């Protein structure tokens, strides 16, 4: 789906994965170019989060392999994948509740373009709350912190699992703006899972639709945005742009 001849940043080949005995994803293949961005859409329970967890190495992989910058990382432990440059922001946010904002960031810090200064510029709100503990933040601030913490590892690819879920519209706007800067201006590659299909498609270049653990549709995000019939069929949602 990516036309460039250059080696993809991430490639999944015929993945079958799940948890223990249960198989959630089957026959998943996809590629993401360096600086690319991909929206993963689908109803609840189709395996979107499992896809990210599989890329991170937290699921049971039964078949297929995962290539990172051309290197097979199928057998690599999660922390090694993280060090290789894959960042993951879980749906549950999972910030360290008893560490301060600054400690939450410091613990993840690895040298690179994203340091605390750059982070506080992207998310001024959490800059103001540096000395507060994780559990003293609002939901939106926690989400920003979770994203910021992943950025502090200076990933080449960021996996985002419903970063806008359950947030107030004004925070959604702020976060979407930050995402846009990350993707467009900074060139961080992103795989984005999002219920707000409109926002997800407007932020990304490519999109896939998942149903029952398999990819059922691939398109350019801009094209899919206009394809109301397909969207309605697979996610049963009218788009609000």
């Amino acid at each position, binding site marked *: 789906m990516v036309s460039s001849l250059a080696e993809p940043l991430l490639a999944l080949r015929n993945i079958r994965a799940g948890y223990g005995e249960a198989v959630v994803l089957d026959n998943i293949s996809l590629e993401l170019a360096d600086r690319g961005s991909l929206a993963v859409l689908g109803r609840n329970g189709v395996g979107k989060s499992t896809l990210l967890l599989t890329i991170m190495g937290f699921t049971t992989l039964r078949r297929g392999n995962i290539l990172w910058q051309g290197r097979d990382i199928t057998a690599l432990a999660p*922390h090694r994948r*993280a060090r290789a440059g894959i960042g993951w922001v879980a749906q549950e946010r999972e910030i*360290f*509740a008893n*560490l301060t904002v600054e400690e939450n960031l410091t613990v993840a810090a690895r040298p690179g373009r994203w340091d*605390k200064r750059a982070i506080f510029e992207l998310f*001024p709100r959490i800059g103001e709350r540096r000395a507060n503990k994780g559990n003293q933040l609002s939901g939106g601030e926690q989400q920003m912190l979770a994203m910021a913490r992943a950025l502090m*590892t200076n990933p080449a690819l960021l996996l985002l699992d419903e970063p806008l879920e359950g947030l107030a519209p004004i925070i959604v706007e702020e976060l979407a703006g930050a995402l846009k800067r990350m993707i467009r201006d900074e060139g961080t590659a992103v795989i984005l899972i999002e219920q707000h299909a409109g926002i997800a498609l407007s932020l990304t270049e490519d999109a896939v639709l998942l149903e029952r653990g398999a990819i059922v549709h691939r398109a350019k995000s801009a094209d899919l945005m206009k394809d109301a019939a397909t969207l309605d069929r697979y996610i049963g949602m009218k788009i609000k742009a």
Partner: protein
Amino acid sequence: MASVAPAISGPHQYLQAQTRWSRVEIAFWLATLLPFVVAPNYLVLASQVAITALFALSLDLILGYAGIVSLGHAAFFGFGAYTAGIISKYGWGEPLSGLLISGIAAGLLGYLMSFVIARFRHLALIMITLGFGFLLLEAANSASWLTGGADGLQGVRMWPLLGIFKFDLWGVTSYWYSLIVLFLLFLVSRRLIHSPFGLSLRGIRENIVRMRAIGAESRAHLQKVYTISAAMAGIAGAVLTQTTETVSLGVLDFQRSADLLVMLILGGAGRLYGGIVGAILYMVARDQFSGINPQYWYFPIGVLLIAVVLFLPNGILGGLAKITASERLQKWMRTLPPWLRGAS
């Protein structure tokens, strides 16, 4: 947008800045010298307290900072105690090298144990450490040819410290010795927890899966800190042997592990000083309560424990920190002259 505070430091500078000594800390360590002046008759107790404080500090490293629950930490304390005793009994009574050897021995045991420990969390850990403690206790009991079994290890003779200071009956040398060992290992622990490694440990305590996702090899970290903690516990045990010139099976007892956990929770886990404050409080309380009523002295301890957990869920130090952070007190503090406020 422009309200980003100045001085955003890099990760190392940030951690460095956390290590400044506050006046309260300095006052605390100066106060540990008070027993020499105020209570010269209690120096034996004071050195027991210092030893227990060191032991509690070792548990704080794994429980308070890395989230490894242990109900069998006496295993390492006892292992260090017996190692020190046996070395001395068989002819080498030099305290400092004995201490070092005991620490290394306990650390080695801890390293071996850490392969199991790092795989489990929570309840499973309690069971494993408990079982390990029992195992070592019975091993020491049955190996009476080496340990003296239930009669205790006899014939431990220590040479004078540095060839000059004899371990006297009043505990002057003992207290100096245990206090200095405690302070030095406290410095090591302090350095450790303010290092990137220490911050990673706290992250692991908070959420182990998340730490993997940001690239920390949690298992190796856990093994490392467990080994360090075991070595420290072993050193605490060795100091006990060296200052009392005897070793009994009690050093490996479950009661010792349990008491230790109680002290740490009383004082406040994950606060570095929590174990030390808890040990002081617990040991002094035990001394006083058992003087009043030698049979039922656990009763007031029980009351104390329940009260602390109910009203100060983060221990005494956690409670204090909350009070000092409260708005009202801050306001009141600002009315004080600067030298009284301290800097923390």
